[in-house]
C-alpha cells in the first residue's frame, strides 16, 4: 500500500517537473528589434547603391549589429525582470537565438570579408539559419505557424541559392517583414493581453 503511494508521489513529481519544463513565454520583442534593424540596413544599402554614395557594406551592417546587440541586451534584462520564471524551454530558446545572433555576423561579415560567402549568398545563409531558429522555437512553443514559417525560410533560402542576384537582399527584407516583424508584433500584443 505504502509502496503504491510512493510510486504515486514520484509520478506526481515527474508530472510537475515535466509541466514546468515546458512552460515557455516569448513576447516577440527580439523579433521586432532584429527585423526592424535588418530592414533599415537593407533600405540604407539600397539608398547607398541608388545614390552612389560609395559607403562600404561593412559600415552599414556593423552599426546595425552593434545597435542590435546593445538593444537586445537591454530587452533581455527587461524581459528577465518581467518573466522571472526561467524554465528549461526558456533557456533552450534563449541559447538557440543567442547562438544564431552570434552566427549571423560571422557568416555575413566575416564570410563576406574573406570572400568565402558572396554578397548575393548572404541572404540565403541568413534565411537558412532563421529557418533553424524558427524550427526549434516551434517545438518549444508548440506553434504550427512557427513551424510553417521555418519551412518558408528554408524554401526562400533554397530559391535564393538557385537564383542569386541583387533581388535576394530585397527578398530577405520582405521575408523579414512578413515572417519576423509581423509575427513579432502579434506575439507582443498577445503577451500584453495575457499578462493583464
Amino acid at each position: 500500500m505504502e509502496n503504491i503511494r510512493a510510486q504515486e508521489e514520484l509520478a506526481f513529481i515527474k508530472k510537475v517537473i515535466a509541466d514546468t519544463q515546458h512552460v515557455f513565454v516569448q513576447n516577440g520583442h527580439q523579433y521586432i528589434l532584429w527585423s526592424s534593424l535588418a530592414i533599415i540596413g537593407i533600405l540604407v544599402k539600397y539608398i547607398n547603391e541608388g545614390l552612389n554614395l560609395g559607403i562600404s557594406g561593412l559600415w552599414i551592417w556593423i552599426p546595425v549589429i552593434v545597435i542590435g546587440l546593445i538593444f537586445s541586451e537591454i530587452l533581455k534584462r527587461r524581459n528577465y525582470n518581467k518573466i522571472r520564471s526561467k524554465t528549461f524551454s526558456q533557456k533552450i530558446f534563449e541559447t538557440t537565438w543567442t547562438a544564431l545572433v552570434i552566427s549571423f555576423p560571422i557568416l555575413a561579415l566575416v564570410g563576406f570579408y574573406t570572400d568565402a560567402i558572396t554578397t548575393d549568398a548572404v541572404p540565403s545563409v541568413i534565411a537558412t539559419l532563421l529557418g533553424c531558429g524558427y524550427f526549434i522555437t516551434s517545438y518549444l512553443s508548440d506553434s504550427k505557424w512557427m513551424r510553417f514559417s521555418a519551412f518558408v525560410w528554408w524554401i526562400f533560402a533554397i530559391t535564393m541559392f538557385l537564383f542569386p542576384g541583387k533581388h535576394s537582399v530585397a527578398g530577405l527584407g520582405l521575408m523579414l517583414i512578413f515572417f519576423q516583424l509581423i509575427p513579432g508584433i502579434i506575439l507582443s500584443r498577445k503577451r500584453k493581453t495575457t499578462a493583464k
Partner: protein
Amino acid sequence: MKDYNYKNIDDIIHSRIRLAIMAVLINVENAEFVFLKKQVNTTDGNLSIHLKKLEDAGYVSVEKKFENRKPVSIYQITEKGKRAFEEYIKKLEKFITK
C-alpha cells in the same frame, strides 16, 4: 526505524502542494507567486500558507518588492531545500525498490 520507512520521510515536503512547489522551484532559477499559483493550481491563500512553511524550514527564500506600485514576491529554492528535495526523492525510490 529503517531507512525506507515511510514515516521517516521529510514532513515539510511530504504534502501535495509543498511537494509541487518544490518540484516547480527545483526546475527554475526563481519563480513569481503568480507563476507558482498557475503551476501548482491552487488558491492564493493556500499557496501562501504552504510557501510560508517552506520558508520557515529554510527550503525556499523570498524576495519581496514593489513594481509599478504592485507587490511582487519572487521565490527561489535554497541549497538546503535542494538537498532536502533530493533526499526526499532518494527515500521514495528506495522505498519503491526495497
